[in-house]
């Protein structure tokens, strides 16, 4: 399964943006502020819709929300599933998108033969996975609650149940890595505490802290193979980023006291482990905050790349803080993974462009009145342009320098009127 096409309307700079995606690797290039990040965060709205409950609401309640639309064409073994959503959103602190309400519909003609849109929110699909037994009945109950749903809709849904749950699973595996998530290791704690019996330590999102505890948990996993494969890549036999990773564990215990109404005192013994991670490099044992920026970022990125089962990965500017020798390996790794899952990368690096197939490249441009546009690099070229590019790549040089020298900037007659690509 993969996403073959997307459309965003009125989402940030994506006023009316439609583009196809590669089933394997898509690389987005374009000037600052052209909308690369917006395209990726628009895709993340799908993930949000899956994770949060929104009920259809006819009208937006106030002037603070913006109405935007997403449409996604999924390809499931050659069959098309179309998802369309109208959202009321606003932007909260840290530029976070908040969805207030949504209307989500599906077009499943390739699956069911019926040319009709049916309304089922994504979160309902996710919910039905976690409710065994009720699996099919429950969303149908939801469908019936909506006044507009007919028996015919329920029939369509029944027929499409399997494929729809694939889609839900696909979206739930969407992962986003941005350049800034793991830079600045000095922010990283040098130890952390976990409660015995509890899997996760505190720490939210993709903070350095969260990474360390995820790394620790993976190293303690009964199935060692994932951790071992990961260590083989970053360790002495692979990229030689670290020689060893050591977790020193100190068991501590404390008593938690809580007072109930009526004055009854409740005591609970807590057993905790203080974990002190150390990275061995050239005979030195270093705390995480002593690692170099590029090292820290790479071991974190590769950890999630290799150990999390993701279906679709969005990676922002993998080149940030990375030496070209290492970057070359990272891009090769991303390319290898993209044969098994859909990956979308944004980049400003001509070196990254050198390493990828020209067919994977998409240009992102923005004009004031049209907003962000995404176009496939070679498909948007004329025959002559394409022949010239192929000649260059076969005989003269690499794609990155072709780009840097301005030769990809052909979409507009007068570059003064638009930003350069």
């Amino acid at each position, binding site marked *: 399964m993969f996403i073959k096409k997307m459309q965003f309307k009125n989402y940030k700079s994506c006023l009316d943006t439609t583009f196809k995606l590669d089933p394997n690797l898509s690389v987005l290039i374009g000037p600052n502020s052209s909308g690369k990040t917006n395209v990726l965060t628009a895709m993340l709205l799908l993930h949000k819709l899956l994770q949060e409950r929104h009920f259809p609401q006819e009208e937006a309640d106030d002037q603070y929300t913006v109405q935007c639309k997403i449409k996604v064409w999924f390809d499931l073994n050659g069959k098309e599933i179309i998802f369309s959503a109208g959202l009321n959103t606003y932007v909260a602190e840290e530029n976070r998108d908040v969805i207030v309400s949504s209307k989500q519909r599906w077009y499943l003609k390739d699956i069911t033969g019926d040319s009709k849109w049916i309304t089922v929110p994504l979160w309902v699909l996710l919910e039905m996975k976690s409710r065994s037994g009720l699996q099919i009945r429950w969303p149908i109950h939801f469908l019936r609650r909506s006044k507009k749903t007919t028996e015919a809709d329920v029939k369509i849904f029944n027929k499409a149940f399997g494929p729809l749950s694939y889609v839900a699973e696909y979206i739930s595996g969407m992962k986003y890595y941005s350049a800034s998530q793991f830079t600045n290791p000095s922010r990283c704690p040098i130890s952390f505490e976990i409660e015995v019996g509890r899997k996760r330590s505190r720490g939210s999102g993709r903070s350095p802290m969260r990474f360390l505890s995820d790394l620790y948990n993976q190293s303690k996993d009964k199935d060692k193979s994932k951790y071992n494969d990961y260590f083989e890549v970053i360790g002495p036999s692979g990229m030689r980023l670290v020689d060893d990773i050591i977790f020193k564990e100190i068991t501590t215990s404390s008593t938690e006291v809580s007072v109930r109404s009526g004055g009854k005192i409740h005591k609970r013994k807590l057993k905790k482990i203080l974990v002190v991670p150390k990275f061995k490099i050239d005979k030195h044992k270093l705390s995480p905050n002593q690692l170099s920026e590029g090292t820290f970022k790479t071991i974190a990125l590769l950890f999630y790349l290799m150990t999390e089962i993701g279906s679709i990965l969005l990676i922002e500017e993998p080149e940030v803080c990375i030496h070209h020798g290492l970057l070359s390996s990272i891009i090769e790794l991303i390319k290898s993974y993209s044969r098994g899952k859909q990956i979308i990368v944004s980049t400003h690096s001509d070196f990254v462009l050198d390493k990828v197939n020209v067919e994977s490249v998409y240009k992102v441009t923005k004009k004031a009145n049209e907003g962000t546009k995404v176009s496939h690099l070679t498909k948007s070229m004329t025959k002559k342009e394409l022949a010239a590019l192929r000649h260059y790549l076969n005989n003269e040089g*690499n794609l990155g320098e072709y780009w840097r020298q301005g030769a990809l900037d052909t979409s507009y007659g007068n570059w003064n009127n638009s930003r350069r690509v």
Partner: protein
Amino acid sequence: MEIGIIAEEYSDLDVLHELTAKIVDVRRFSFGRKFIAHGCGKLRKKCRVWAEILIKKGCRHLIVLHDLDNNSQDELRTFLNRSVADLNFSGYIILIPKHEIEAWLLVDANALKKVFGMSKMPSVPSSPELILEPKEKLEEIVRKYSGKQYFNSIHNRIIANRLEIRLLKRKCLSFADYPSFINRIFS
């Protein structure tokens, strides 16, 4: 001894280094003087200029490594030959793995078994040079027999380190002349 290298990717250099170490003691040579093209067009275009610089840096021998990919063997070899033939190297060799350097890594089932911890001996092609996309083939074999993901930038060096050069010489014509080239330099 300093041997100048012109190659497409770092991982190609890694492979060649491991293979060379099987022919001559690793302390006797270094691949420190190199140009990595990161693409075939660039390599063609810059081959001569880079070779000249390698001479200036003191290299007396040169290795040019370029995957055949979809090129014509004769045309590519003639082109690269012409780029360096009249320069003052004591010896040079042009290696054109067919169709990619990963074909060389497909010769030794036992090496693959060991590197990836396979429980069964994998079946490898008897003529790896006939495989059009050896990288994909290798990936497929690794997944099938070990369930692991193959990464060229990590594993190529490790596989090269383990493989039997005798098998490589026999199965890959594109490699056949290399051992005698190295032996000549160091004799």
